[in-house]
């Protein structure tokens, strides 16, 4: 049997991954949170494209987090357009300004910690685990 994907819907994270520095930061924050097992990173483009497999997979999530780099809130809006109600984070609200944000380890960790700390109950990952014991860790590594 190959790698099982039967992990029951935990927390899915959708960064806007925009072209600006804050878009880049959103992407790296999402990857950091995914690496630490706090959420599973998902493809926002697949939702925007209305790929049935992506939409149905997202429906299985317990919680959906949108991380946007700026007030345009593309990730939040794409998810809402597809019928989801994400927990929304705007990096601007967390102190990261478009055009003056450095995408470095310090800021990635700072943003990830703020997101995981903010509304911690909403964003916490308490996956029930799949059928193969593939439970994820919920702590943010390096926090």
């Amino acid at each position, binding site marked *: 049997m190959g790698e099982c994907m039967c992990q029951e819907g935990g927390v899915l994270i959708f960064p806007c991954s925009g072209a600006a520095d804050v878009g880049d930061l959103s992407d790296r924050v999402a990857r950091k949170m995914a690496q630490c097992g706090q959420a599973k990173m998902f493809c926002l483009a697949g939702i925007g494209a209305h790929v049935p*497999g992506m939409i149905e997979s997202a429906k299985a999530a317990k919680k959906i987090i949108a991380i946007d780099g700026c007030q345009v809130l593309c990730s939040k809006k794409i998810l809402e357009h597809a019928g989801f109600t994400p927990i929304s984070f705007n990096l601007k609200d967390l102190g990261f300004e478009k055009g003056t944000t450095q995408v470095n380890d310090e800021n990635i960790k700072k943003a990830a910690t703020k997101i995981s700390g903010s509304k911690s109950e909403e964003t916490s990952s308490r996956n029930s685990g799949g059928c193969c014991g593939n439970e994820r860790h919920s702590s943010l590594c390096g926090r």
Partner: protein
Amino acid sequence: MKIEILGVGCPKCKQLTANTEVAVKELNIQAEVGKVTDIDKITDYGVMMTPALAVDGTVVSAGKVLSKDEIKRIISK
């Protein structure tokens, strides 16, 4: 009608397969029930959570073990 169960073969995938086969039998319809276990093929469908169910190439459910009745409702549409 072509019905595919997408999953690498874990107990949940097997349960969805069994439920699908019962649903098809009870509806008494002509349907080919197959399995897609290759993870690359599964992700080609855009599925990130299994088990998933596809009807005539379109994913209609993912990350859930649908009951027999849920499957009957979906394939009766």
